């Protein structure tokens, strides 16, 4: 007897028909207008800033994408990873190594994402049966291996890094001037953020949240926990890789520091600063972090020590980040208003 012969259940207690009244509109436009607002606000800010701050913002929006990809893991799915810089670095090195190819910049980004996805799938498969904490350790190991490889594999040039990565041109527009590169990068970032937002709101995204909240229950109701975790890891890896490609084009140089575990820590701090749980939290955190960094530390590459202290302070004092603080303030306001 096969399973499909099962009878469909007749309705239980068939009641009167009713109109489905969902609180949400049929078409959720958030994946469209939110990235658009993001694009407009950052661009407006870009054009009123002095050039040195424009430079900071240019990197910040790339990091915003990177931090969001980390949010896919920490925030959406509950996968803890401490080697996320590896995927960013893999993407950056992919674009750097392929620089001789006569491709358009978008093709480089595609390749960066693709190679990072392949790496993420391989790591995800090896770690598929590990528990959360062990997987976190594995990601750190992998991140370290990727970092060490840049010194062992001759074409990766060790500490010197890879230079003169071209920006190329898109639709006939030369991306070398900073302003054209701004438009190129913010449009790419906004589009990818929109796609991620759409994924976040889809049943796939809901399933990831379910896995995060209770993996046993999720499996019991038929959510394929393992393959969705793998999919989330691949998605996050791919987006981080794409951000890495963008970063390589932006700075035209790639060095091992893009893969270092200090940088992995920095990505975590950025995402945590904004708040891992909300969709826009990590992006907000990344931009905030870059500006705090630039204004307070004069944009020098500050030490591991300071990073550690910031991370510890955020974890212990504001575990849900800036968005969490906003939410708490709003709660307080509402409560005091209702008391009056």
């Amino acid at each position, binding site marked *: 007897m096969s399973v499909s012969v099962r*009878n469909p*259940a007749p309705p239980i207690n068939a009641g009167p*028909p009713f109109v*489905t009244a969902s609180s949400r509109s049929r078409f959720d436009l958030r994946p469209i207008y939110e990235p658009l607002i993001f694009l407009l606000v950052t661009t407006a800010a870009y054009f009123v800033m002095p050039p040195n701050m424009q430079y900071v913002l240019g990197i910040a929006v790339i990091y915003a994408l990177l931090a969001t990809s980390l949010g896919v893991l920490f925030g959406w799915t509950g996968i803890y990873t401490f080697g996320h810089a590896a995927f960013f670095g893999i993407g950056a090195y992919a674009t750097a190594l392929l620089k001789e190819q006569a491709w358009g910049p978008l093709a480089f980004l595609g390749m960066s994402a693709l190679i990072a996805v392949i790496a993420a799938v391989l790591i995800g498969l090896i770690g598929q049966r590990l528990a959360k904490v062990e997987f976190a350790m594995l990601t750190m190991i992998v991140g370290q291996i990727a970092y060490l490889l840049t010194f062992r594999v001759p074409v990766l040039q060790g500490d010197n890094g890879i230079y003169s990565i071209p920006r190329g041109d898109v639709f006939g527009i030369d991306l070398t001037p900073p302003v054209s590169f701004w438009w190129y990068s913010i449009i790419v970032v906004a589009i990818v953020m929109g796609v991620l937002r759409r994924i976040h709101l889809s049943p796939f995204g809901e399933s990831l949240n379910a896995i995060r909240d*209770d993996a046993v229950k999720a499996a*019991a*109701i038929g959510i394929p926990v393992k393959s969705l975790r793998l999919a989330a890891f691949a998605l996050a890896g791919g987006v981080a890789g794409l951000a890495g490609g963008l970063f390589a084009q932006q700075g035209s140089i790639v060095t091992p520091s893009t893969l270092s575990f200090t940088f992995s820590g920095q990505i975590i701090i950025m995402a945590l600063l904004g708040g891992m749980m909300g969709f826009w939290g990590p992006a907000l955190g990344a931009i905030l972090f870059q500006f705090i960094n630039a204004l307070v530390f004069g944009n020098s590459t500050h030490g591991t020590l300071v990073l550690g202290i910031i991370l510890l302070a955020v974890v212990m004092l504001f575990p849900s980040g800036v968005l969490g603080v906003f939410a708490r303030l709003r709660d307080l306001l509402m409560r005091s208003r209702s008391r009056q």
Partner: protein
Amino acid sequence: MNVLELHNVHKNYGGPPVVQDVSLSIAAGQTVAIIGPNGAGKTTLFGVMAGEHRATKGSISLFGKDATRAGAQRLSHLGVARTFPVARYFLAKTVEQNLVIARDAHQSKYRNPVSRTPRSDEGIRTALRAVGLDELRHQPSNTLSHGDRKSLEIAMALTQNPAVLLLDEPTAGMGAEDIPRTIRLLKGLRESRPDLTIIITAHDMEVVFALADRVVLMANGRVALEGNPSAIRDDPLTREIYLGNSYEGDKQ
């Protein structure tokens, strides 16, 4: 035809076996109650039947096909729905959203990562009404009472149109008025779906007698007795097992 068959199933958590040598055949449409003192291994056996745990020894077949290594997700799609002794659901969601997730998981909607926002439908409202949660559907689920949480979990299972329903202590924590309603709900389910197989565990004998066609008494991980409810009730061994346990319970 038996829906579910267990052959010499063993399970341990790395230590001594918690379920030992359990063999059961459960026919379609039966309601079976698994009873036994605390720690007898009922929940563990449920976990094995639902694929949460893999049997350390023995085999399981579902609809005549081997399902020993199927895993929870696969079994869920084959029609096995289960609840947990302490209700498990998604605390951050509303009551209705929990059902939407259960339905979408069952219909494999997650396969489309860019589809539209999941919405409620008639099946979900029907399930909510059946367990008496219709009015609370927009409540955050973490505000529910203990009994309502159990009801929510049953409703999630109902949206999945199961062939085998595993209910682990479905009435634990429910108020006096919710227990009869749950019994009525399950009875109604059996009437409307004669082929639905229900397996429950319960410490509440009222529930067992109201529903079960057959009772399996477990003790120390083994099946001690099996038979119709009144035969189990009248068997001296039942008394002995429960009394023996309560005696030990006093000592602690």
